[in-house]
């Protein structure tokens, strides 16, 4: 009896054609949109929409670390605060850090710690704030991916961008990027963050039940997704910072033809052989002051 129920539950999550509840295949990401530079006061910021997730990330610093005793005389601290808004989940979440957010904040801080050039900013702190406004599973990955763009937007020197995506298992099938239902009723979830250029894994967590082969497949899916995320991150930064010729012209119009006087004076000795010709403008220039 229990087995039948179990199978029915699995059938619902992914059908015999490998199509998931929201119509995705096993290796498809949900729709993702990233925007860089969305907050005015923060040194850097980014907003990400990832399926039903809406997450803001802001970066302050490098700035003097407070309280003083946490300062590291040799390098900057990278401190992340991951927070969920009380209204971001179906049952109101009690505001403030719970044990889950403390853990997520810690692993995200550590993930960025290895890419930021911390030695350039002793005694400072690079503060990353991640606010989950609307949650639909995979918020730590969405938050980390946005925070990476926010760090770049803040101009914090880094080795590379970091992107994160989870893979999991639903109905016995290893799938990329689980949504809320899949996460709740699935068999495993494995979030992972990767440094773009090197493929280093800087965040890795897993809960559920995976065999070695399933885990390997999950990692491969997440690594592949990270590549697509880098493109989205880069595009977001390009949109923020690239300018068209038209914009350049509008903001700083080409210099108006320089006044003839100084030009005459500058080129006079070359073009005009006669020293007398140089004299009148000189008189005009210095005459009044001389008087």
């Amino acid at each position: 009896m229990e087995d039948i129920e179990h199978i029915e539950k699995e059938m619902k999550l992914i059908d015999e054609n490998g199509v998931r509840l929201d119509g995705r295949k096993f290796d498809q990401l949900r729709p993702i949109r990233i925007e860089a530079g969305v907050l005015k006061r923060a040194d850097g910021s980014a907003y990400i929409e990832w399926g039903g997730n809406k997450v803001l990330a802001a970066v302050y610093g490098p700035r003097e670390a407070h309280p003083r005793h946490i300062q590291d005389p040799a390098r900057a601290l990278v401190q992340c605060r991951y927070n969920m808004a009380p209204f971001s989940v179906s049952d109101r979440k009690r505001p403030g850090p719970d044990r889950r957010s403390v853990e997520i904040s810690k692993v995200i801080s550590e993930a960025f710690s290895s890419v930021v050039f911390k030695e350039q900013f002793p005694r400072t702190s690079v503060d990353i704030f991640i606010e989950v406004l609307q949650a639909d599973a995979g918020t730590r990955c969405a938050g980390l991916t946005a925070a990476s763009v926010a760090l770049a937007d803040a101009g914090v020197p880094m080795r590379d961008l970091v992107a994160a995506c989870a893979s999991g298992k639903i109905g016995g099938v290893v799938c990329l990027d689980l949504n809320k239902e899949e996460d709740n009723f699935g068999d495993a979830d494995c979030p992972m963050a990767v440094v773009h250029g090197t493929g280093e894994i800087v965040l890795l967590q897993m809960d559920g039940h995976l065999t070695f082969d399933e885990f390997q497949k999950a990692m491969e899916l997440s690594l592949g997704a990270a590549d697509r995320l880098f493109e989205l991150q880069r595009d977001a930064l390009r949109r923020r910072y690239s300018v068209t010729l038209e914009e350049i012209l509008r903001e700083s119009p080409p210099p108006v033809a320089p006044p003839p006087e100084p030009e005459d004076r500058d080129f006079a000795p070359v073009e005009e052989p006669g020293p007398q010709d140089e004299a009148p403008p000189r008189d005009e220039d210095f005459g009044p002051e001389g008087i």
Partner: protein
Amino acid sequence: MSEEIVSDLMRAHIYRLAQRGERVDGRGLDEPRKLTVERRYVGTAEGSARAKLGNTDVLVGIKMSTGEPYPDTPDTGVLSTSLELVPMASPTFEAGPPRPEAIEIARVVDRGIRESKMVNVEKLCIKPKEKVWILFIDIHVLDYDGNLFDVGSYGATAALASTIVPAKAQGLGEDFPLPVEHWPVSVTFAKIKDLILLDPDLDEERMAEARLTVTTDENGDIRAMQKGLSGSFSFDEVKRCIETSQKVGRQIRPILQGS
């Protein structure tokens, strides 16, 4: 936990030894310290175990009470894990609310036990939606010499296996042993430069750039993982760690089972 400093001399020594596949205490790189487990250490607890891994020493107590289930799991018992870094265990531990380090360890230990379905929590339901058994796992760190992730997990696993559900005292029939069905084993690795050391002691842990905990079950399947610290692992390193943790898990499991 992060304030302790390892001298450059010690760092160089540890790394040089590790390059030759050796360690300060004579172990190989893939070899855990000696584990001893003493069950039913505390009479006032429903279950308990004192676990020592080398010089790291923890006492885990299990207390049970009855209460309301969570609304999303109305017919299963509740599991709650916490860890206290008792100030006597290290000069760097201070009294006060749990630090992020302690929260992370407790949550990773909890994840291994929960996700392996070690305790059949469905058998801890008294009346659906109204009354279930609540299981508190309290890990008390007494002496800290590195790798609390594994010792904490070993102590908790052994303590759970020794637990007798106090049904009689609650007027719920006869006492019965806690339904334990699986045996997760947590194995933690520390990465020092290009080398990976299993079950790091304090100095090794201090100088590690990255940490990886893998919890496997009796089938060798992965039930929980956690990467920590600011360094990184490559895909291949992660795969090697998993394979080693499966192997070492098979050695540790009988000690936890007490056979």
